[in-house]
């Protein structure tokens, strides 16, 4: 059994003007598809074949770098598509908002910290909101690493993530990564994030 590229729950143009259709299509059909194919090739005939992606991530220090890079790329993009929606934006509510307030002081303080983590990640990588044993934490990881990996500085369950590889925004924003990050908040699907928070 192999991993499958998931289909999106919205059209490629659904996140415009915040994320353009051409970027979405290349990002999904080329980048995410390549990570998926390369992951399947890397785990074929190994003890990882048949394992869940979460389990592979949790033991990533034992596995070849191709699994770290492509398994991370597969998982991270799955999450990224899931936590965005054309009906997104605004603020979270209920227990997620309570948890954000208790960890960061306010939603504004959280969103500032998350945006800063995304803007200052040098090179390629991701910024995350992570559920940990000590509450919610903002972190960032290089390349396709993520908080599920046993090598991550901040370990836990990612419930929100932003891709800050240049391929995620270059066609639309070029060098203006901060503009992309600001636009991202308009498409965050807080219901999906809340589900991951409770999951």
């Amino acid at each position, binding site marked *: 059994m192999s991993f499958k590229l998931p289909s999106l729950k919205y059209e490629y143009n659904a996140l415009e003007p915040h994320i353009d259709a051409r970027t979405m299509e*290349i990002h999904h059909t*080329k*980048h995410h598809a*390549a990570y998926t194919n390369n992951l399947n090739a890397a785990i074929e005939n190994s003890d990882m074949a048949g394992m869940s992606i979460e389990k592979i991530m949790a033991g990533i220090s034992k596995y070849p*770098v191709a699994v770290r*890079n492509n398994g991370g790329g597969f998982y991270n993009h799955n999450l990224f598509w899931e936590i965005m929606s054309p009906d997104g934006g605004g603020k979270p509510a209920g227990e997620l908002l309570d948890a954000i307030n208790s960890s960061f002081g306010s939603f504004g303080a959280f969103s500032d910290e998350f945006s800063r983590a995304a803007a200052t990640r*040098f*090179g*390629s*990588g991701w910024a995350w909101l992570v559920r940990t044993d000590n509450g919610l934490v903002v972190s960032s990881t*290089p*390349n*396709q690493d993520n908080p599920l990996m046993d090598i991550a500085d901040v370990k836990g369950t990612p419930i929100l993530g932003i891709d800050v*590889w*240049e*391929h995620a925004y*270059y*066609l639309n924003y*070029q*060098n203006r990564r901060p503009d992309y990050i600001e636009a991202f908040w308009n498409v965050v699907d807080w219901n999906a994030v809340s589900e991951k928070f409770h999951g």
Partner: protein
Amino acid sequence: MAFELPALPYGQSGLEPVMSEKTMGFHYGKHHQAYVNNLNSLIEGTRFANASLNDIVMESEGGIFNNAAQVWNHTFFFESVTPGGRGEPGEELARAIDRNFGSFEKFRDEFGKAGTTLFGSGWVWLVKNATGMLDIIQESNAGNPLRKGLTPVLTLDVWEHAYYLDYQNRRPDYIKAFWTIVDWQKVGNRYLQV
């Protein structure tokens, strides 16, 4: 004394169609310029305030290193290419390439492979070591071979910003096109000088 963005040795449309005018406008005009600006503001009031760029690249860490090395790398990169390319590696460098890689084609394949397999952002380098041997190395993000005691001879920027407007995910096409603009006269002279 503040660092300044070095002038390009050709116009911003000079590398078309390998690197479009639009790409160069951002790559040189925005990215390279931002590294220069960030470096100047970061070194203010530090022990690097009056240091040479080479010394900063060799001795700094963190944000200062990232911006200093990116200034160095981009200047070296933009000086490694020229409209339409120029010449051949020259006798000495050609002989060294044959000796170290077997043939020019094998060198090009190996350098290209290093470019396509570098994961994330970074640079591919042809370097010369203390004994005069050539090698191809990959460096992530702002990495610079001077830090390893190696002498850079040629470099290729494989950050996505270097090719995304023109090639999107097709990094191998960008690398293939790169060979048509390499300034071998310049690269050959670098090999002789160091």
